[in-house]
């Protein structure tokens, strides 16, 4: 019976961690943290709303259509940055992520990790450390590499 209770607790903890960003929940409560959360429901509404003006600069309509969640956290507080870096590293090492891109240009660092199901990108984590501003972006959905290429075409550095 004791074993059964232990198994039950493990199941509950595992499923609690699944499907939601504990990382976002933790840091969104910090004072002075810039945060953005767009829920799957909002994305589905965006897809239905034909009144929205689609931008000419970036071909993001296709990307938005396939997105189901967006989390952004950004801060310039050195204490928060150190903690975020540590937690982000733990988050990445705990999951099975594929490195999409790593760019280091002097003080500026950008890391992108993704999770794929066959050819579909289901999760995309972006960690950018530039000009003393540290940002973590998490995107979920069903994106293809073509979607990302299209998105990149519109924006030049």
């Amino acid at each position, binding site marked *: 019976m004791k074993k059964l209770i232990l198994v039950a607790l493990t199941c509950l903890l595992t499923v*609690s961690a699944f499907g939601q960003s504990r990382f976002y929940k933790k840091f969104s409560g910090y004072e002075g943290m810039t945060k953005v959360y*767009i*829920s799957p429901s909002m994305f589905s509404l*965006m897809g239905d709303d034909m009144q929205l003006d689609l931008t000419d600069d970036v071909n993001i309509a296709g990307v938005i259509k396939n997105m189901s969640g967006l989390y952004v956290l950004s801060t310039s507080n050195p204490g928060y940055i150190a903690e975020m870096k540590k937690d982000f590293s733990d988050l990445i090492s705990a999951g099975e992520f594929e490195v999409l891109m790593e*760019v280091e240009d002097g003080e500026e660092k*950008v890391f992108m990790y993704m999770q794929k199901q066959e050819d579909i990108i289901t999760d995309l984590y972006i960690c950018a450390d530039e000009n003393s501003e540290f940002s973590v972006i998490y995107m979920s959905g069903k994106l293809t590499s073509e979607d990302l290429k299209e998105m990149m075409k519109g924006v030049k550095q």
Partner: protein
Amino acid sequence: MKADKIKDIMDKHYQGIEVPGDLEARLSATIDRLAAEEAHSDGARPARRVTMWKVVAVAASVTIIVTLALFLPVRDSHIQIADTCTYTRDAYQETEEVLQYVSSLMNKGVNKVSETHKNISAINTVNKYIEIK
């Protein structure tokens, strides 16, 4: 009558074959020893009795665990995180800004790759020139 006849036939058949005198006693002792061992091993491992209530209890526990695991966290996640934007237009603009930023970061990486590629090509050209010389 029949048993006597069989005994006679057997006696005739086995005439001349010597049988040890204590064979019967040894066989009897062996049979007794094996019977005692079997009885002892039966006592050490009593048969498991699975009662009906135990089966029901395990089934009920599994059902409760699965139900809790599937439904509790889902409700919890919806309560705790609230949407940043109330209107779809605001959410769209916010998403657009984030995606533009992500695109610029990706382009930064792609530019670095093409820069490196150009440098490698230049190095290869110089190497070829040195080889010709």
